[in-house]
């Protein structure tokens, strides 16, 4: 295989870069060891920052967020819900910070409007009675999966290649260049070499591992962040705690649910990226100060991601575009065609892709300018099933009795699942339960896959999409993946759900007695 640019990592940075390069006419191949947004890009709030969160600590990041947020609202409106946001302080919070907040915002050109606490509580009745200050800001929410899927979808339409479940495992070095990269298909075990003119490491928390393949040392600190998903949507707007950024100070609506978080815990290795009971309790306790109802809310799952924080020792050679993200040209490490782009905010992904694209194009001798600042992100039908409510609306409109519902919690019909399957097939890729779950609402409801794992697996068998002996194995893996996010939030009603799931899948089906090959 050959490609102009090999991108390693299928998060928002990698998919954004693939689109950026495709729009400049550069052919690239993106390899991802799991699936799209498998790392931090799929494990965040989905918050499109107004920038107000960073006005005190990091004004340049704040300005960057504001500019990029405005662009995304304009160019990627289909991925954004323009909810607006609130910053609120409660009794006991630092009143000095509250007093400084409006001027800090205006210093960064971030629009902000003060509300009296009563008015804020009329807008958001879930807010605490102990509110002492409230400000309206231009926060919005974004669907991280849809955004990454749309980016890679357009890139693919323009000739890019995506290889999912594919890990870069070895680099072949010739002089000052990486000549080729050995790729391992993690599903089939097949290996193949790919030659690339340029290699971009966009693997987020895995950047150190990937750089190490080229014997490039990268100092990184892993910071785990955990978030919770509620059963109901608690507020219309984003709600931020008005204080210096800390633990569990944001609540973000996401379709029909709300997302609470995050924690920030240093972890020594990437084996420990899972939410814990302690983190869940910390988030619930902390956020109930702003929104008392979260103490008694029902939660359907938790999830964790890792913020890749670069701890660079060699400031001179680090082309730090801003304190917010790092673009590393490994020329200084003796490799002329290897670049790492990491860190940053979801909100600023486009800018990161632009800067990385500029560097890569310069190295390729291509002078086409970046187009993502002006070209709208197209909306493709195949990518829109991640949004809550889309599948049932579509189903009701069509009124087709043949179109059975496969996921009862989220009302996802066969037709929607078929379209997702077809979109995967169109890229000559293999659909499975997890790939379908990532590209739709399947498995996201309160039953967390108890019923829909069976129904979707049966549907895949009906369509001969999977080898006949694979369906049970896929179900078992799918439930196991959902479980990682469930076990720390199992109390109240969700405990009943978990018991139902286990009584069916263990009690009746005896799934635990069947060992999946390779596990």
């Amino acid at each position, binding site marked *: 295989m050959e490609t102009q640019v090999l991108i390693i990592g299928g998060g928002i940075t990698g998919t954004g870069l693939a689109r950026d390069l495709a729009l400049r006419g550069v052919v690239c191949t993106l390899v991802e060891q799991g699936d799209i947004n498998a790392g931090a890009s799929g494990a965040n709030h989905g918050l499109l920052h107004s920038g107000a969160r960073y006005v005190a600590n990091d004004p340049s990041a704040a300005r960057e967020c504001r500019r990029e947020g405005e662009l995304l609202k304009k160019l990627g409106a289909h991925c954004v819900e323009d909810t607006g946001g609130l910053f609120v302080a409660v009794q006991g919070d630092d009143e000095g910070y509250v007093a400084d907040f409006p001027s800090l915002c205006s210093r960064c050109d971030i629009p902000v409007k003060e509300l009296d606490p009563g008015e804020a509580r009329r807008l958001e009745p879930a807010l605490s009675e102990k509110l002492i200050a409230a400000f309206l800001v231009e926060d919005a929410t974004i669907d991280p999966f849809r955004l990454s899927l749309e980016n890679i979808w357009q890139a693919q339409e323009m000739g890019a290649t995506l290889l999912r479940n594919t890990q870069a495992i070895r680099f072949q070095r010739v002089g000052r260049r990486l000549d080729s990269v050995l790729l391992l298909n993690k599903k089939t075990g097949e290996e193949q070499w790919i030659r690339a003119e340029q290699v971009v490491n966009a693997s987020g928390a895995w950047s150190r591992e990937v750089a190490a393949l080229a014997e490039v040392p990268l100092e990184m600190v892993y910071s785990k962040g955990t978030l919770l998903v509620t059963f109901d949507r608690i507020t219309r707007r984003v709600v931020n705690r008005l204080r210096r950024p800390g633990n569990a100070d944001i609540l973000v609506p996401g379709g029909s649910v709300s997302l609470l978080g995050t924690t920030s815990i240093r972890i020594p290795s990437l084996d420990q990226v899972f939410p814990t*009971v302690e983190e869940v309790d910390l988030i619930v306790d902390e956020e109930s100060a702003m929104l008392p109802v979260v103490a008694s809310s029902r939660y359907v799952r938790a999830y964790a991601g890792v913020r890749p924080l670069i701890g660079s020792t060699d400031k001179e050679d680090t082309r730090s575009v801003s304190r917010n993200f790092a673009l590393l040209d490994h020329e200084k490490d003796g490799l002329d065609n290897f670049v790492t782009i990491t860190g940053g905010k979801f909100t600023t992904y486009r800018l990161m892709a632009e800067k990385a694209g500029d560097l890569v194009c310069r190295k390729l001798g291509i002078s086409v300018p970046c187009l993502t600042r002006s070209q709208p992100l197209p909306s493709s039908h195949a990518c829109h099933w991640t949004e809550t409510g889309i599948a049932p609306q579509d189903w009701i409109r069509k009124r087709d009795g043949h179109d059975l519902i496969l996921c009862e919690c989220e009302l996802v019909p066969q037709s929607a699942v078929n379209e997702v399957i077809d979109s995967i097939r169109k890229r000559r890729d293999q659909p499975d339960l997890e790939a379908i779950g990532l590209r739709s609402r399947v498995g996201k409801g309160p039953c967390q896959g108890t019923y829909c794992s*069976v129904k979707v697996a049966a549907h895949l068998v009906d369509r001969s999409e999977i080898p006949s002996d694979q*369906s049970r194995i896929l179900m078992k893996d799918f439930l196991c993946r959902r479980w990682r996010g469930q076990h720390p939030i199992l109390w109240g009603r969700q405990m*009943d759900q978990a018991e139902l799931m286990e009584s069916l899948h263990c*009690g*009746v089906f005896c799934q635990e007695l069947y060992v999946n090959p390779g596990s």
Partner: protein
Amino acid sequence: MPAVERHWLECELAVIGAGMAGMAASLFACNRGISVAQLGATGGIAFSSGFLDLLGVHPVEESKRLSDPWAGLSAVQGDMPLHPLGRVPIGDIRAALAEYLRFLESVGLPYLSLLESNAEVLTLLGTVKPTYAAPLTMWSGVRAWKEKRPCLFLDFQGLQEFNANLVSANLKAEWPATRSERLTFPGSGSADRLYTRHLAREMELSDTQEKLARLIRSHVRQDECVGMPAVLGMRESPRVLARMQEMIQAPLFEIPTLPACVPGLRLKESFEAYLPSRGVKAFWQRQVRAVRRVEGGPFVLNLGGGGEVEEIRAEAVLLATGRFFGKGLVADRGRIRETLFGLEVRQPENRSHWHHRDLWDPRGHPVNRAGLETDESFRPLGVSGQAAYPDLYASGSILAHQDWMRMKCGSGLAIVTSYAAVKAIHGRRGGHCP
């Protein structure tokens, strides 16, 4: 204004809970002439697959399937002395099962068992499960699997609770002579969403039976037996099966569908018809609002308004309220509580220890072994380690030290512990075993 009259009912035993354990307890109690009132929602029993497990796996850590449940029970008595099934003499376990199976036979829902060994039954995932007894309507599947005879699995267009392709696909490796076909259920359109309980009622009509049998017959080729979703009638499933087999001229068997499934509903309906006919005062859709105990007097169960009887006064209470799904236990962020009496719940130290991170951890999740600890008579223990009340008993899945889902002992646990508790109640009342 008329005088406010207090509506109450007296009985010897109040059974709280109407799942597998509660129903079995009422059955055993009324068989012994004990006057019984039973409360609680009956929905849960419909989630049963219809299989009657005694003990299918032990030790759980080794995922060891048991072909001989009796040898397994002896092992449990040694390895897990606190396991509820480990505390009941084997003779009583046999007697409990025999009485329960006799009841099922008598109400037209006969079960078959190999008696001394577990049978292997088929599930809708195409997995195989060890169980002690299964409805007659499923039994040909046990033989078909054992002999790997050429078998046709059928399902119906529009019925999502069962998929023959899935069954066949997952059995194929070990049972190559299987295949699958999708039929249109007689009288239904291709765009109809079908429901198992409607199909079961339909199957009681001879016209539907004939049409379906003819349809099946036209699809049978080299196949020596036919498996299909469990919809062969609600009340008279053995008769429906016999007629169908006669017309198809091949052994036919049911496989339980996704819950709530018909074999579970048949159990529910059988109990609902039988127990009141034997004098059990049933308050099935009503919940106990509050319980109090007059010193030296009966338990007083308050049912709240909304019915003729607002209060039940019972000399003894059997708690068969189940676990979380049954609402016998409730978990908040910190602790697991028993909902009605506030009884002590044996449980892991804190929530971090409730579950393992791997869903399929071979040890099973510790929270599943949480529950009520009891004395030898199945009376829940109080703080002191003595029975919390002299006349309060508990049975079924609410009991501690068992993981029925992994050990495949759910029905056995419900039936056997209810039997043992009723036997103790009967004994205290001066009764003798029938």
